[in-house]
């Protein structure tokens, strides 16, 4: 059983459909016990880091997620929340404290003339490290990105994409996995990547 934590992701339909296509059983739950006892966990995220952390705290899920020992996949904002802190806080405020599982920071993509922000659309992902879950040639493909903040580089980076600078696309740290793009919106490439982690 895979548990999807709905707390910070508004749109779960496509993730559930992807899991159905992979013939995996899933449940949506905010219950700490159910989350802790499931085989794998997905933390999707859409929106604002500070608001998202407040929601996780309000549901008492901060410590639950932090202490998970099974494979846990953070998607988009869900990936960024795995890091120490994020610059995506209320205007002028200090960086917002995140789950502090991966020892890096989340920064805003710096605007340069001629570029569009947020980084939105299909971008090419290239392997940047070894993963126990996939072969380098299998992961290289186009995936759908929508984000204005990015995670810090470090030994946890397994794949990158290029948007003016190298942006971490897939990270792995202990049992935690993060994807900056939306695998559930990335057609067959995304589905196959989900299969490599979840099946």
């Amino acid at each position: 059983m895979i548990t999807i934590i709905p707390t910070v992701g508004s749109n779960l339909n496509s993730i559930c459909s992807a899991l159905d296509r992979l013939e995996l059983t899933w449940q949506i739950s905010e219950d700490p016990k159910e989350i802790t006892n499931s085989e794998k966990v997905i933390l999707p995220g859409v929106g604002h880091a500070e608001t998202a952390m407040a929601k996780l705290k309000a549901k008492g899920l901060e410590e639950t997620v932090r202490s998970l020992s099974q494979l846990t996949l953070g998607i988009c904002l869900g990936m960024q929340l795995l890091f120490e802190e994020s610059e995506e806080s209320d205007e002028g405020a200090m960086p917002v404290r995140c789950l502090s599982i991966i020892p890096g920071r989340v920064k805003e993509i710096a605007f340069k003339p001629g570029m569009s922000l947020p980084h939105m659309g299909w971008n090419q992902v290239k392997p940047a490290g070894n993963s126990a879950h996939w072969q380098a040639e299998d992961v290289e493909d186009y995936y759908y990105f929508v984000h204005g903040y990015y995670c810090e580089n470090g030994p946890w980076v397994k794949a990158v994409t290029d948007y003016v600078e190298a942006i971490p696309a897939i990270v792995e740290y202990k049992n935690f996995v993060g994807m900056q793009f939306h695998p559930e919106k990335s057609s067959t490439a995304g589905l196959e990547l989900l299969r490599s982690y979840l099946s």
Partner: protein
Amino acid sequence: MLSKRIIPCLDVKAGTVVKGVNFRQHREVGGILDLARYYTEEGADELVFYDITASAEGRRVTTDWISKLAKVLDIPFCVAGGIRSVEDANEVLRAGADKISVNSPAIKDPDLINRLAKAFGRQCVVVGIDSHWSEEHGYESYRNTGIPELMSKQEKSTFDWLVEVQERGAGEIVLNCMGSDGTKDGYDCKQLAKARSLCGVPLIASGGAGCAEDFYEVFTKTQVDGALAASIFHNKTLRIGALKKYLASRNLPIRKESKWETKQLQTFKA
């Protein structure tokens, strides 16, 4: 490298997909789910669904077909039409749309853009601008373009409005050049290039695509992030697969078919 997006636009009216010429004379082209599936298989990068009469008729877009779409589609899609409040947008996003697009209601209530961006993040908020050029006034933006009798222009010029919506929190702009819409004479590159220079968020060109060269032209002359078209895709004058091959052969960054799809195809054939 970030690829240029090819976006079929499906104008929805009373549950079916329609397409008009110069915003009038709507013609039925097919069912929503069938067309959505067809375009995904063709290699569309994203889909846009416009409930073209919702705003003018004073009702919100219905959500039953959106949840059905979300279950079928594994590429992003945007829904527009009659979204007038955070609650309206919430229902559409909860039903499974990735983005919502506002046009006429944002002209009437510009603060709506701020409220939507605050509630859902600017990446969900697309602002559509219907723009028309006149000798006397230059580029002007219009509202209620879905129903000719109710169509009216607003006081702000297209470019002032384009800057304002970004300041208010738009995460993407679709600039529909009404003079070229449905004409198949090519995108309005002059207007789009000017818009691009004022735009820090993704900009999508709309209106006028008639052949593959028009897409090449708009991407190279204006640096837009994506190009939207309807009739040439609906009547199969231009197939998306062929278009993407052509653009890639001319060295534009285009998303190719995933190797997994190629593998699947080989398995089917075997």
